[in-house]
């Protein structure tokens, strides 16, 4: 399942009266457990990751912890696998997020219409979201299976395929097969977010547009789209961050293979640390990836920050 996402921003805008005089420190006391715990388990480790990235640190040679400056980072720039993973990361995000968004948009538009089983449909559509990523990955591996997978079976019965095809074992299709899986996993999130946006558009806007002679397409173009533009951008940024972060599905489905066909940057960092036990280089890869992702995170925070300013 995708990581939980922060409830977006009602939290902040609400007006609360200023503090009572005499207890100016109380909010800090109340916050201290959460802040201290996150400092210890998140921020210190992160700082340590950055420190690790400047060192030679092989887990099976703990005595040799030598400062090497930018060596790990320079090594990455000269590493073919790094660049393969780098480009895959872009292809993978560039396909997955728009696919999730489009399918989510269509689903939300349909769910926003009136039909008798709307409540049931709404509940069913988000089920994929609760599924553990490992199960998602294994389930799709079974669907894609070269020998007895249902995908090959269906395609062959429809005469779209002559012989069964090893979707995940072929370097040309593996990445796209995973993109389809991630699309399946993530589109309900968009559908739910966009649906909430759609329901916030006042009905009178559509009535006014209809009186002005706007057809269905024009209503969509000039009423619906502007109405949900904010939600679309927020959801896409959030989703981009999570898709970029999620390596469990790929790890279970292909482990990066065949060859390096499904390597992405975070996956490469993880595998480098896990199998080569090279924590120095692995950390450097993770830091590079975080810096790239940091641009998107900043864009998102700026959106949130505007509302936080209250």
């Amino acid at each position, binding site marked *: *399942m995708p*990581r*939980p996402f*922060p*409830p*977006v*921003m009602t*939290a*902040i*805008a609400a007006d*609360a009266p200023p*503090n009572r005089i005499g207890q100016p420190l*109380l909010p*800090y006391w*109340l916050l201290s457990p*959460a*802040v201290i*715990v*996150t400092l210890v*388990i*998140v921020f210190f*480790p*992160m700082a*340590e*990751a950055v420190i*690790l990235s400047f060192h030679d640190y092989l887990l099976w040679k703990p005595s040799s912890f030598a400062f090497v400056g930018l060596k790990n980072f320079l090594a990455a720039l000269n590493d073919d696998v790094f660049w393969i993973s780098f480009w895959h990361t872009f292809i993978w995000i560039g396909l997955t997020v728009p696919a999730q968004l489009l399918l989510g948009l269509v*689903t939300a538009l*349909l*769910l926003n219409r*009136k039909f008798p*089983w709307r409540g049931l449909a709404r509940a*069913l559509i*988000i089920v*994929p979201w*609760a*599924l*553990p990523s*490992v*199960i998602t990955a*294994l*389930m799709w591996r*079974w*669907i894609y299976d070269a020998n007895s997978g*249902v995908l090959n079976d269906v395609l062959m019965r429809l005469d779209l395929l002559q012989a069964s095809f090893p979707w995940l074992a072929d370097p040309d299709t593996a990445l796209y097969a995973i993109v389809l899986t991630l699309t399946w996993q993530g589109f309900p999130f968009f559908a*739910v977010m966009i649906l*909430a*946006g759609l329901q916030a558009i006042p009905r009178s806007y*559509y009535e006014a547009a*209809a009186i002005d002679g706007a057809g269905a397409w024009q*209503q969509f173009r000039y009423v619906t789209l502007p109405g949900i533009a*904010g939600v679309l951008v927020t959801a896409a940024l959030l989703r981009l961050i999570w898709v970029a972060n999620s*390596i469990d599905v790929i790890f*279970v489905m292909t482990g990066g293979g065949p060859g390096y066909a499904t390597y992405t940057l975070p996956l490469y960092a993880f595998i480098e640390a896990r199998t080569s036990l090279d*924590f120095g280089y*692995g950390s450097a890869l*993770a830091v590079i*990836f975080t810096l790239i992702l940091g641009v998107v995170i900043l864009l998102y*925070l700026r*959106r*949130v920050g505007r509302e936080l300013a209250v």
Partner: protein
Amino acid sequence: MTETPSLPRRLITTDLPIAVIIAFALGPYVWMFLTSVTAEATLAAEGVSVAPVEWVIDNYLRLFGRTTFLVNLGHSFIVASGTVLLGLLVAVTAAYAFSRFRFPGRRLLMLQFLVINMFPVVLLILPLFVLMRRLGLLDTHAALIIANATIAIPFSVWMLTSYMNAIPESLDEAAMTDGCSRLGALWRIVLPLCWPGIVATGIYIFITAWNEYLYALTLGGQNVRTMTVALQTLIGEYQIEWGLLTAGGVVGALPVTVLFLIVQRRLISGLTAGSVKG
């Protein structure tokens, strides 16, 4: 969009496409279930049994009889429950501070909790491994609870803040006029009122921790092997026993799917409420 379309038209333009999308969303689930009730021999020879008369529970019997899956489910339960406790415990007072006070640094601290949720797992997983090894916590429940809390705490802080904001401040003040302290107001007034929100948040944390895989794989081991890691080990050495594996998938997914369906309405209203203003 204002007039009601005729029934046949509605069926074609609304019901049918929705049904197709739901089939796409649920198809893999159904397929997993069908595979799990097909005998291993049938699976190899004829494929998945669609007809209920052919269904067998062999795979489930093997799953519980010959593997340690039940124990693994227990570990998952301990880790997930521990994460819920730790997450909610430290988040409740923090959320109350964010909801009821305006103080210097508030914005920065709130953003800090937001940012944590977005940092790549890979960046945390390596140093956490080093940290746990140093503390001798590798392969314990504590290690996994702590790792899961990195996600659970910031999430709970945000969720609970938004739930507490929905409770009028005047109630706290009335309680304090009647002699309650600040914390008394939190304990006696705010907590009981936002109980449903706390339950929804707790369940969501539980689901996330239950589903977590990478930390469990890296920080767990022989002693503490959660359901998600155990599923991977069900894959045979020479060939994958899909019947057994899908039975494990069904059992592993069942609790969280049920929990999710129970709280989804409340959770989603909490999650999306503010985003609409975008």
